[in-house]
C-alpha cells in the first residue's frame, strides 16, 4: 500500500529527526511550560471519565449482558426440556405402536389359525362322511354282486336243466347243479 509506505517513511523521518526537529521547528509538544496545564486537565478529565464508567456505565452494561445471558440460558434450557419431552413422547408412541402392531398380528394369526382349523375340521367331516357313504356303497355293490353271482349259479343250473330237458328230454336238476358247480369251479382261474 503506497499510502502506508509514505506514512511509514514520514514517521521514520519524524522519529529520527524528532529531537532536532523539535528544536529547529520548535515542536509545541516539547514546550515544557505547557506540561502542567495539560496534566492538570488530563487528571481532571480522566478522573471524571473513570468515575462515570466505574459507577454508572459499566455496572449497568454488565448487569444487562448478564441478565441477557441468563435469559438465553433459561430459554435454551426450556427448549432442551421441551425437546426431551417430545422425544420421550415419541419413544412412548413408538412403543405403543409396536405393541398395537404385535397385538394386531397376534389377532390375525389367531383368526387365521381358527379359520384353518375350522376348514380342516369341515374337510375331515365331509371326507369322513363321503368315506362312509363310499364304504356303504361298496358294501352294497359287493352284496349285490354276491347275490348276482349266487343267482348266476341257480340261473345257469336252470338254463342248463332247460337246455338238457329240451335236448335230452329229462334232466335231474340236482345232477345238473352239481355239474354246473364243478364247471364253474373249473372255469375259475
Amino acid at each position: 500500500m503506497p499510502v502506508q509506505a509514505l506514512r511509514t517513511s514520514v514517521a521514520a523521518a519524524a522519529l529520527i529527526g524528532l529531537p532536532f526537529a523539535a528544536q529547529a521547528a520548535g515542536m509545541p509538544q516539547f514546550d515544557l511550560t505547557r506540561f502542567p496545564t495539560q496534566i492538570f486537565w488530563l487528571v481532571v478529565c480522566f478522573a471524571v471519565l473513570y468515575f462515570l464508567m466505574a459507577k454508572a456505565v459499566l455496572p449497568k452494561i454488565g448487569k444487562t449482558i448478564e441478565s441477557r445471558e441468563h435469559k438465553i440460558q433459561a430459554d435454551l434450557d426450556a427448549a432442551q426440556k421441551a425437546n426431551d419431552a417430545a422425544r420421550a413422547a415419541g419413544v412412548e408412541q413408538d412403543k405403543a405402536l409396536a405393541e398395537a402392531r404385535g397385538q394386531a398380528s397376534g389377532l390375525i394369526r389367531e383368526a387365521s389359525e381358527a379359520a384353518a382349523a375350522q376348514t380342516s375340521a369341515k374337510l375331515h367331516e365331509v371326507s369322513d362322511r363321503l368315506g362312509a357313504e363310499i364304504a356303504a356303497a361298496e358294501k352294497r355293490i359287493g352284496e349285490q354282486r354276491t347275490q348276482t353271482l349266487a343267482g348266476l349259479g341257480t340261473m345257469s343250473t336252470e338254463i342248463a336243466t332247460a337246455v338238457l330237458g329240451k335236448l335230452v328230454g329229462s334232466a335231474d336238476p340236482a345232477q345238473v347243479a352239481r355239474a354246473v358247480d364243478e364247471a364253474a369251479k373249473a372255469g375259475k382261474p
Partner: protein
Amino acid sequence: MASPLEQFAIQDLTAPLFSIGGHHIAVTNSAVFMMGAVVLSSGLLLAGAGKGAMIPGRIQAMAELFYEFIANMIRDNVGSAGKKFFPFIFSLFIFTLFGNILGMLPYGYTFTSQIAVTFFMAMVVFLGVTLIGLFKHGLHFFSLFFPHGAPLFTAPILIPIELVSYLSRPISLSVRLFANMTVGHVLLKVLAGFVIALGFFGVIPLVVLVAITALELLVALLQAYIFTILCCIYLNDALHLH
C-alpha cells in the same frame, strides 16, 4: 503557509483560572477536546447503558460492543485477576480512542498527539503496575527481571537487559501513541498544503489526502487498541510474573 507543527500548539482560551505550584491553569484548546471526549463518550455510553434492554438498540449495541471488547481483552491477556482493573482499562481505552477520533474532525485538536498527555498516562500505568506487582509479590517481584530457567551465569547480562526493557516501557508506550498521532496529522497538513499550492493539479494530493484520512481513522482505532492492550500485558506481567 503555516508550519504543519502549528496545529499542536497549546493555546489558552481563557484567562488563567488559578495556579498550582506557580503554574497558571487556563482552559486550553487541548483541555476543551479532552472535556469533549469525556462528555461525548460518557454521553454515548450512558445512553447505551441507560435502558438495559434485552434486545439492544444501536447505541446500546455499541456500548455493549465496547464493554465486551475490553472485557475479552482483559480476560485473554490478564485473566480473572484483571477484573478489578476493568473500569480503569476501559476508561483508558475510551479516553484514548475518543481523543484520537475527535482529532480527526476538521478544526479538531488531538490531545493524544501531546507527549505530555501520553507520557503521563504511560507513567501512571507503569508506576501503578509496578506498585501492584510489588504489593502482590513483595521482593519476589524482582524475579521479573530474570527469565525463569535461564542459567545463573547469564544473570549479569540478562538482568540489565530486562531492567532497561522494563524501564523503557513508559517511553515506548507513550512515544508510540504520540508519534503516530503527530505524524498522521503532520502528513495530513502537509498534503493539504499541496492541494492548495498545486492549483488544478491539487486533485492528485487531494485523492491521497482522502486515502490518508481513512488510514488515519484506522490508525486512531489501532493505536487506542495497542495502548490499551500493552497496558493489559504489563498488568499481566506484574500480576503473574513469569
